[in-house]
């Protein structure tokens, strides 16, 4: 039988506890022939040679650690989104094949030899750069999180999707290698009237967003590598824009052009989408920064508590405004909090890992986490956001989630009120 944690979780009730006195939810049944004092089946025989798997892949026993999508969300899989399995990840690096995808016209396939980046408009010299040109500029290597503005968007009106992956998984965190725009623009020069940049992709959606020049010169990159290897096609191969701390839609993939102008371009994405509709029918525009947020990745709906006794609660926190200063965790729905341990490195605009050990005796828990960033901003409750913005904003829901742990150890996404 193929190991499938999820299926086993679903059928946990049918199985009794096996072997371990504190175990409350059964997982898989071990094969006693592989346990001490017996010789495990994988020991006598030769395994795969070095020529069998030139580009490695995870163990077959990890086959449920994958991106997942919600088919009913969108009309087509080419203009859609899938979600990072945060509940299965450790540390702060998102493996390249697990970084969530958001496309507006599918994945563009680009031969890097044919790749060109054009810079035009209010520059001293309108120029074109090949990928080789870009790689000859001084390079930087930086970790940044990328979060879709719609992450958690389905949860505005109530607890809707029963999973850490589906409610928080439109975020990933990788190390980018690229050239700073401020270096690249030393080549083109910039006219004093240049206040806005139009970033344009070369995929079939021709993705476009307007970005203020100050941000472009501050910390934006053209990146060609992630986590040490070339960008994955679904992440913009061979080059994408990196806009640290700001909403993922602006990080234009397959980037082909930067146009400098004196006004914003008011593209479809920054007017009809990615604007935050308020209760009074007016909408906020140019809400770029991703405010501080955190999530408990385990326990979570996908990660029930399997044993009584010591637990290692794990989670992730991030802020588009800088470094995470502190993360607090509550086990009683926010009445009492304790501060979690943050794990180095703690970098600006990057995911941070936190953990908190606790003892579970089989009681009901209401688990929450709240992030505090270096500006002093505290991750809010949804009610605070709703009070000001209403329930139709879709975007920028950075509120505290609640996981209900039942006496069986099962975990559900719930809304408190």
């Amino acid at each position, binding site marked *: 039988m193929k190991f499938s944690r999820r299926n086993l979780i679903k059928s946990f009730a049918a199985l009794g506890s096996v072997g371990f006195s504190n175990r409350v939810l059964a997982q898989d049944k071990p094969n006693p022939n592989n346990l001490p004092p017996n010789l495990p089946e994988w020991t006598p025989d030769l395994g795969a040679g070095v020529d069998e798997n030139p580009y490695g892949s995870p163990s077959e026993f990890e086959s449920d650690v994958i991106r997942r999508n919600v088919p009913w969300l969108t009309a087509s899989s080419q203009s859609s989104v899938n979600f990072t399995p945060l509940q299965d990840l450790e540390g702060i690096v998102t493996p390249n094949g697990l970084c969530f995808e958001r496309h507006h016209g599918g994945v563009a396939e680009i031969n890097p030899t044919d790749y060109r980046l054009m810079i035009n408009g209010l520059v001293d010299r*309108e120029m074109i750069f090949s990928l080789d040109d870009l790689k000859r500029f001084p390079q930087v290597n930086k970790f940044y999180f990328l979060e879709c503005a719609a992450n958690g968007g389905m949860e505005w009106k109530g607890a809707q999707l029963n999973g850490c992956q589906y409610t928080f998984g439109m975020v990933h965190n990788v190390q980018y290698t690229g050239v700073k725009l401020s270096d690249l623009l030393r080549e083109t020069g910039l006219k004093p009237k240049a206040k806005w940049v139009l970033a344009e992709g070369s995929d079939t959606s021709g993705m476009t967003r307007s970005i203020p020049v100050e941000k472009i010169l501050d910390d934006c990159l053209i990146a060609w590598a992630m986590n040490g290897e070339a960008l994955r096609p679904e992440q913009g191969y061979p080059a994408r824009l990196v806009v640290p701390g700001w909403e993922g839609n602006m990080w234009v993939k397959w980037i082909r052009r930067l146009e400098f102008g004196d006004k914003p371009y008011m593209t479809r994405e920054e*007017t009809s989408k990615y604007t935050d509709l308020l*209760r009074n029918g007016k909408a906020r525009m140019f809400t770029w920064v991703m405010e501080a947020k955190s999530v408990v990745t385990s326990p979570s709906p996908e990660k029930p508590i399997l044993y009584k006794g010591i637990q290692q609660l794990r989670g992730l926190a991030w802020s588009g405004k800088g470094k995470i200063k502190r993360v607090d965790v509550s086990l009683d729905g926010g009445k009492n*909090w304790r501060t979690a341990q943050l794990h180095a490195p703690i970098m600006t605009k990057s995911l941070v890992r936190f953990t908190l050990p606790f003892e579970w005796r089989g009681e009901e828990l209401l688990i929450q986490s709240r992030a505090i960033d270096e500006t002093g901003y505290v991750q809010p409750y949804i009610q605070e956001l709703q009070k000001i913005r209403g329930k139709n904003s879709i975007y920028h829901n950075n509120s505290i989630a609640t996981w209900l742990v039942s006496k069986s150890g099962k975990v559900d996404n719930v809304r408190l009120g």
Partner: protein
Amino acid sequence: MYVWVKIISALMLTSLIGTSSLEASERAFNLGSIATSQQVKGWDIDVRPDGVGAPIGSGTAFDGEEVFAEQCASCHGDFGEGVDRWPELVGGDGTLNTHDPLKTTGSYWPYASTIFDYIYRAMPFGASQSLSFDETYQIVAYLLYMNDIIDDDFVLSDQNIGLIKMPNQDGFLLPDPRPDVSTINGNPCMKNCNVPVKIIGKAKDIDVTPED
């Protein structure tokens, strides 16, 4: 090569801005190549709200009806009402402040330029940049007509697309007012906090989570 690039660069500057290039910055790394105006023209397809960038062309809603039926209706419906989960393009007037807002080109989009820019660059879905400029003006005119913004004989063109006043043009707020919640200066309540802990909703009861 180095010298050649320098010369071309200086020539381009002169031709582009028509003034002395004395103020222009020096190139720092001598990487990349100068773009010709023809190269830029081929890729510079964006259209701004004031009409800057609008390509020469024109069209009426009367002409657009047929183009729309051919190119757009299979997803958006003959009258922009939307098919299956594809977007509705017409209607929604007066819904933005209700529980069920309908955001269409007529009720929500603030600029006609954006409709042109988006249709030309990204539509029809899966055949982007295949429409002619005139066809694109015709489709935009048809959408504006169906949303009661222009008459069916109004000739929409590069000359007037920047002058169209959309119903929701003043519906957007700037700048970003966040943080818009009390931040408690980084010192939130830690003990015996007064928060609601009653469960008022469970995702599993909504039952829309994909099974796998």
